[in-house]
């Protein structure tokens, strides 16, 4: 069907990097401010009232959740707002697709780029959290791989949505109705087990829930069960990867 070219995908990543490098200084602050505020409010402020959660200090529980959530948010910003501008406002997708690079390479390149961005910001936050004492195992060196996988997944998901929406306002709905609930209810701030019974199956559907489980296992050196969650993420990536390729041709080629 739509053949992918590794070379072309590499070019797309390079192009994204060119723009990113210039805007890094302005984008690093907002991307890290959000998890830092939550870290202070919950991990430090609220922690005094909570004590241990699932056998670990609440500070560690929240911080490991925030590392994974930071990658989700970084990838989502890239795949929604940034991608929308490139598709519909500046139309750089069309400029690039005039070269030997085809639309399917552009969209997959951007999903991978979302994964890279997620890795960069997630790791930066991880380092900050490390200085505050949130790292308890050498297994933490594997966290960036998890951040990439999670970023790739949310990159694909965000791009699917961005390709479907008729205008920019709908991106807010995605942020409010899809991303924000996942942020809150994915074992990030409190255990899913403490939620109402009927809500728990939905949490299981949240990719962030599985990413948090892996991230926490690696940061605290308790990796039992992370293979299942990793497998869940990989399977979802494989299942949805074809959809943006199909949609980009349906929505941008008339």
């Amino acid at each position, binding site marked *: 069907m739509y053949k992918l*070219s590794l*070379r*072309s995908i590499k*070019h797309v990543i*390079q*192009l994204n990097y*060119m*723009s990113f490098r*210039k*805007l890094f200084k302005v984008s690093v602050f907002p991307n890290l401010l959000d998890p830092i505020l939550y870290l202070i409010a919950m991990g430090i402020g609220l922690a005094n009232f909570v004590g241990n959660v699932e056998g670990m200090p609440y500070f560690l529980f929240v911080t490991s959740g925030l590392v994974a959530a930071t990658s989700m948010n970084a990838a989502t910003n890239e795949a929604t707002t940034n991608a929308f501008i490139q598709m519909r406002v*500046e*139309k*750089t997708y*069309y*400029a*690039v*697709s*005039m*070269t*030997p*690079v*085809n639309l399917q390479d552009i969209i997959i390149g951007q999903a991978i780029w979302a994964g890279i961005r997620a890795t960069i910001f997630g790791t930066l936050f991880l380092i900050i959290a490390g200085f505050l004492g949130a790292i308890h195992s050498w297994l933490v060196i594997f966290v960036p791989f998890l951040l990439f996988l999670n970023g790739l997944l949310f990159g694909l998901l965000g791009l699917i949505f961005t390709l479907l929406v008729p205008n920019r306002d709908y991106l807010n709905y995605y942020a409010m109705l899809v991303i924000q609930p996942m942020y809150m209810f994915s074992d990030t701030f409190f255990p899913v087990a403490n939620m109402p019974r009927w809500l728990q199956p939905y949490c299981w559907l949240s990719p962030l829930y599985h990413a948090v489980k892996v991230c926490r296992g690696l940061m605290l050196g308790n990796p039992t069960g992370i293979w299942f969650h990793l497998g869940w993420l990989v399977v979802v990536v494989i299942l949805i990867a074809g959809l943006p390729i199909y949609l980009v041709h349906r929505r941008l*080629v*008339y």
Partner: protein
Amino acid sequence: MKPILEVSHLSKKYGSFTAVNDISFQLQRNRCIALLGTNGAGKTTTMKMIYAAASITRGRITVDGFDVKKSPSNTKRALGIVSQEDLLDGSLTVYENMIAHGLCYDIPKRELKKRTQNLLTFAGLANYDDKQISDLSGGMRRRLVLARALLNHPKVIILDEPTTGLDIQSRHVIWKKLDQLKSEGVSLLLTSHYMDEVQRLADQVLIIHRGKILASGAPDTLPAKYGYQSLEEAFLALTDFHEEDDHIVQALS
């Protein structure tokens, strides 16, 4: 000799509306074909199908021996495109826009930088390489888009209203460059609203109306062939005639 661009029985439908209706033509090496038509005639749509930005409803296009539907990367490698909209990346500078574009053709970094310098000089933008796109005038953007389209040393250049909105000086700069490219063996496919531009550049003119080719020929001989004094007269008469024709059909039905 085999044509570098071959369009045969090309049609495009948007739903039930036919924007391009059974168009065929062949472009040879170092020749220039101009598509002349009123707004909405189907010129841009035809060009978009050639550079794979619009899907082909019916018919076949080959560029440089490759089929556009089957191997778009290969056909696009042979093309330089000046689209009707500028499509420049506002997050990058003038220089970076060139580099970003050239990367996609696998042009080695060193060579790419050299070509970029030369083309920016040609486009009169050598002193603007650090400028943001938003700092450029409309004419400068147009010249930048042309410079960008030449980065990959294309065999065919597609120019969709390349000089619309430009001052007369800029138009002459562009015409001279296109003449030079043609003499080097490059082929041009052009749309324009300017008769002088068509007369100056084209070896063959296709008058397109409502997606169909109504007349074709060299700019000097076409008018006489259809019984008119000038290209402009032929163009107006041919396109108007069909408007009236339709009114009559509508009135009768």
